């Protein structure tokens, strides 16, 4: 059997410089942040365009004559018909209308609603206010419920966990309109605690927000609790306990932050959905808002309004999920550092 001679390679300069220098690594996190935001913006522009295009194609494929809708009772008058077609630019082929629409968007001109005869941007801006109030109230309440329930049920009171589990099943399996109707029946009609007549008042916001926050909050609690449980099983939790930290301290200072990472993604998705309009909630409580006008717009095939709402909803979604990603990036340094050391 041939033997390898015993030889050794001299230490050369080649060997040096191959290893990357670890301390320099954290300085690059700033640049990474910019790159992420930049990529997200480009992505957002593309998604917005795609949303508009798909919606445009879809509404034009819907049956129904736009001109008749615009004319209402005068639909049989040929003179008016010709004037209307010219005024709304309906004589143009669909692709030209599409291009005109796209070109107007950057200036904030989303066209005029067929059914309400008002600028779409104005209509949406008006509806945005109650929608935003509802979304913000619902979301804040959901996050509070989520964190409180998760924190309470991972503590040392053994009975809380099954109780929370039961509530979770109830709220998550109940259809959203049912919960809204029950809340309305019990707290408004029967007990009279919260009137929903005046949607502008704070009291009027309580029940709709609760209808949104209860299922979302308990769902969030589930995700958070899983995260806390998993974090508490990690060696660093034991290390923290061995430093003299209390059980509650470990949960507060270590586990909660770990659990927040998946929760943040979920909160982003929920927020995006709510900002696009909570249709069922708004309908049950008869609240004005994006959801309401969206339903109305689709019913009458109000193309400019449908397009405008699609645009705003998509934008809200992108903004919310990008914010969630940025928040995760701030919380988790491992996402910031490019390569693992």
């Amino acid at each position, binding site marked *: *059997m*041939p*033997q*390898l*001679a*015993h*030889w*050794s*390679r*001299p*230490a050369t300069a*080649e*060997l040096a410089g*191959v*290893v*990357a220098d*670890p*301390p320099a*690594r*954290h300085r*690059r996190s700033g640049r*990474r942040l910019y790159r992420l935001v930049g990529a997200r913006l480009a992505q957002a522009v593309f998604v917005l365009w795609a949303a508009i295009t798909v919606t445009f194609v879809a509404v034009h494929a819907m049956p129904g004559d736009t001109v008749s809708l615009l004319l209402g009772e005068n639909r049989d008058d040929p003179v008016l018909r010709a004037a209307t077609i010219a005024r709304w630019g309906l004589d143009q082929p669909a692709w030209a209308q599409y291009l005109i629409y796209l070109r107007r968007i950057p200036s904030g001109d989303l066209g005029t609603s067929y059914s309400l005869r008002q600028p779409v941007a104005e209509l949406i801006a008006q509806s945005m206010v109650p929608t935003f109030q509802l979304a913000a109230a619902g979301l804040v309440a959901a996050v509070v419920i989520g964190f409180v329930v998760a924190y309470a049920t991972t503590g040392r009171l053994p009975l809380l966990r099954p109780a929370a589990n039961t509530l979770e099943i109830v709220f998550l399996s109940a259809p959203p309109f049912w919960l809204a109707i029950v809340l309305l029946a019990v707290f408004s009609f029967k007990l009279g605690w919260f009137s929903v007549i005046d949607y502008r008042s704070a009291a009027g916001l309580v029940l709709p927000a609760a209808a949104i926050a209860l299922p979302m909050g308990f769902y969030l609690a589930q995700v958070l609790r899983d995260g806390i*449980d998993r974090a*508490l*099983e*990690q*060696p*660093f*939790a*034991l*290390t*923290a*306990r*061995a*430093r*003299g*930290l*209390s059980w509650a*301290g470990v949960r507060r*200072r*270590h586990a909660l*932050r*770990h659990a927040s990472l998946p929760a943040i993604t979920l909160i982003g998705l929920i927020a995006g959905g709510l900002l696009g309009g909570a249709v069922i909630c708004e309908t049950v409580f008869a609240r004005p808002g994006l959801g309401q006008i969206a339903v109305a717009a689709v019913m009458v095939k109000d193309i400019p309004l449908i397009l405008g709402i699609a645009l705003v909803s998509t934008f809200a979604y992108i903004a919310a999920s990008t914010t969630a990603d940025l928040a995760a990036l701030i*919380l*988790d*340094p*491992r996402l910031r*550092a*490019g*390569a*693992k*050391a």
Partner: protein
Amino acid sequence: MTATLTATAPDRRLAADPLPAPSPDQAAPLVAVRNLTVRFTGRRPVTAVKGLDLTIRPGQTVALVGESGSGKSVTARSLVGLAGEAAVVTADRFELAGRDARRLTERQWRALRGGGVGLVLQDALTALDPLRTVGQEITEVLKTHRLGRRRRHYADQVNELLTAVGVDDPAVRARQYAHQLSGGLRQRALIASGLAGEPDLLIVDEPTTALDVSVQAQIIDLLRQHQARGTALLVISHDLAVVSRLADHLIVMRDGRAVEQGPTLEVLRHPVHRYTKDLLAAVPSRASRSRRLSPDPPIFDYRATPSGRAGGADDAQRTSSPSSRRRHRHHTRLRPLATPTIGGSGLSHQRVDTRAAAELARPAPEAIPPAGTPVLAAREVTKYFSLPGGRGRRRAVAQVSLELFPGQKLGLVGQSGSGKSTLARILLGLIRPDAGRVEVQGQSWAAGDKASRARLRRQVQFISQNSAGSFDPRYTVAEIIGEPLRGVLPARQAADRVVRLLDVVGLRPEVLDVSPRLLSGGQAQRVAICRALALRPAVIICDEPVSALDVSIQAQVLDLLDELNRATGTALAFISHDLGVVHHLVDQVIVMNNGFVVEQGDVEAVFGDPRHPYTQSLVRAIPRLPAGAAHPSA
């Protein structure tokens, strides 16, 4: 009792015997535990620690040595009151720093943890919170125990602590996260957090496991420095060599009991208990070359044959290893979740049937190259990996040449990141090198069509560190081993071959119908060896095949590989970071650093007289058993 080195009557050291009463001139012990028992309640209750006695005096270092499931980590956690919610800890005497720990309230425990007793877990990457900087983690101790010299300003203290554990540039490191630090720095930072409360006793759980040898040596030196400053240490380890460098007093644990204890050198030089002897014999090193590491017939059943009073009345209720049945919420798992293993060892015999092995697994005639041709050769192989974010590329393997002849055993050593595993993948033909070529029996991977590559693949088989992960969990063991034979042999012949191969690697036929999830680490490795042998390969490439195994199981698997190599003439390329394992097993060795081969040749020559500074530093850093430690004469 730390000072006596003279051989005492063996019976005195057997663990179940009471410790000699401390003489009055000795300081009051920091830890005085009598008859410590830790039971885990739950669906399948288990007693992890059974009647352990432990005394640690100020400044003393005591080591708990044992394999997984021996109860050593549970003991350590019990000493800080963190054995877990499902744990029931009882003791006749349980004193920590003169106070009765059985009566401590949670608040008093908390004051003790970190302040009186520091605990440093193994693997700093997971033992430090990945979302917090190293500085924040150290500060946490100072805040919890209100040790700040100035309110809300701990930076100076953190810097001092990091400097004390030998971290350069402490201000920068304190702002970094664990994953941004190298393994050694991370471990130092973790130790700094353990020392931040200036505890009288520091418990270190496997402080050097998973670290490269040179880093290992540095951490041992660091712990020795703190020893010299008067900190008492409780070292938990499976590594006798590491322990011998640190501890005054040694306790060997098995199945929740101390089977033997005494002054470290004395226990290592004159082991009394059979288990200690076998454990010492199982340590692979230069001295163990060409002898078996594992006890050979009969397989000594420590449970069935209690020596002294080790092994007890409740042995009957024990089924598998305690760690496999420990399940409780809120308690850090000591090991990756173990599944119930096959009862007993699952082994039919220990020694390989040479004739059967030769008949079944000798390389096929077409696998034997013409004389003088290596079965596997690398010619100036180079591989680059591009760095993330377009920051250029890194050389993973640089101009590596090697030749492996039939029947030869070649070792590949180097620290993590040295390119060993990349080289293994190139040799297997899984990664295409950027330059150079790999030849199997003189034929290059790159040349030839798909069919000829498939023929070559049969000649080069692979065993990984985590074989269990390489098995399809839905397959049975028989299907796993038989998979490579599909389309090669008729089904009946293949099935017959699987049964006989299984016997060659020492597994009982019952294992055949079992899911791989039920295999223990050692059994999984045997199945992997079986699968590798199924096609009568010329070479088996083993990437850290024993790194995840306990010493005694490692010994069995190394013995098996060695005997198979002798019986069948299958060449082995053996990758390991453990120089002792390599020195024990192989004939030729290649030392890699940063992708380059820095030294190669006969293993005795390279490790006996290393020429390259890198090899010299590696060899110097090998933790060794003290001179005179009991190695049975082969």
